[in-house]
């Protein structure tokens, strides 16, 4: 079987202590169910997880490097969006 018959999937695993699924890597499989089995075999061999998500890589819409100036730079000069920007009145004490 050649890889051209297979699709690429991204794998997310939640560890027993973790609250959220974390991206751990990708793999090739024929469909989602198949990908789930391989995720189990490739990414949870050492008891890393208790829950697995797989998503077709092609279904992920991601930001592009070219977009970075418009996407991320504008927030660099807006410190008032951080809570630490605001001094607390003495009366509030430790929040």
């Amino acid at each position: 079987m050649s890889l051209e018959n297979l699709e690429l999937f991204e794998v997310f695993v939640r560890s027993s202590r973790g609250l959220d699924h974390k991206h751990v890597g990708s793999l090739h499989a024929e469909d989602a169910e198949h990908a789930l089995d391989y995720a189990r075999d490739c990414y949870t061999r050492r008891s890393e997880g208790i829950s697995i998500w797989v998503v077709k890589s092609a279904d992920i819409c991601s930001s592009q490097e070219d977009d970075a100036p418009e996407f991320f730079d504008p927030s660099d000069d807006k410190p008032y969006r951080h809570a630490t920007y605001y001094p607390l009145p003495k009366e509030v004490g430790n929040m």
Partner: protein
Amino acid sequence: MLDLKEKTKQYSTRLGDDSLILGHRISEWTSNGPFLEEDIALGNVALDYIGRARMFYTYAADLAGNGKTEDDLAYLRSEREFQNYLINELPRGDFAFTMVRQLFVDVFFSYYLKALTNSNDTELAAIATKSLKETRYHLRRSRDWTLRLGLGTDESKARMTKALAEIWGYVHELFEPDELELELIACGIAVDTREIKDNWFADIGAILSEADLAIPDAEWAVRGGRKGYHTEHLSMLLSVMQSVHRAHPGANW
């Protein structure tokens, strides 16, 4: 007349033989798998079987109580002393052959190990409980691949059909307990595979039918594994598997 301990030792040894020989056969796919993910998955299954063999052999060595270890049983016995079912020693063939064998063995073990969890021998029952979870996952895989290949392309279907025809004659001995097993069945220790037979045929029939594959109507049957009569393939497997241990006796990692 052998006592019960000696018989249980022999029984545990042959269960170890089944797992070790099949585990070795599957391990031959390592670095030869159809693609990376399947290569790793097959390696996991091979390790499950080799781990299972270790448990059965360790228990057999404990029962023997003569200072021999699991390694003696795995690496220092000859072909005639192995009592694995013949289906486990057949060369891995192509991927379809490997998957048909896995399907047959996985369905068999899913019933066998479940029955063994009720054994009067608590050690064997404990090994079965641990192994049953692995087998359920193996069956999920082999069933899935049977459907994919049976319903896949003309090529994959033809290969599955050929593999079914080549393996079918080796399934019959699975359901024919020998004298040792009959005695242990009477003691509530061994599994009576005659009671598994109908379920096995029903499950295999259902899976193959879903995969648009037919049960072969072949009449031939090969027997002898439990007596130590093997195909010509086992001696070659053993010579490879045992070569390092025999060349460096007693070596430690």
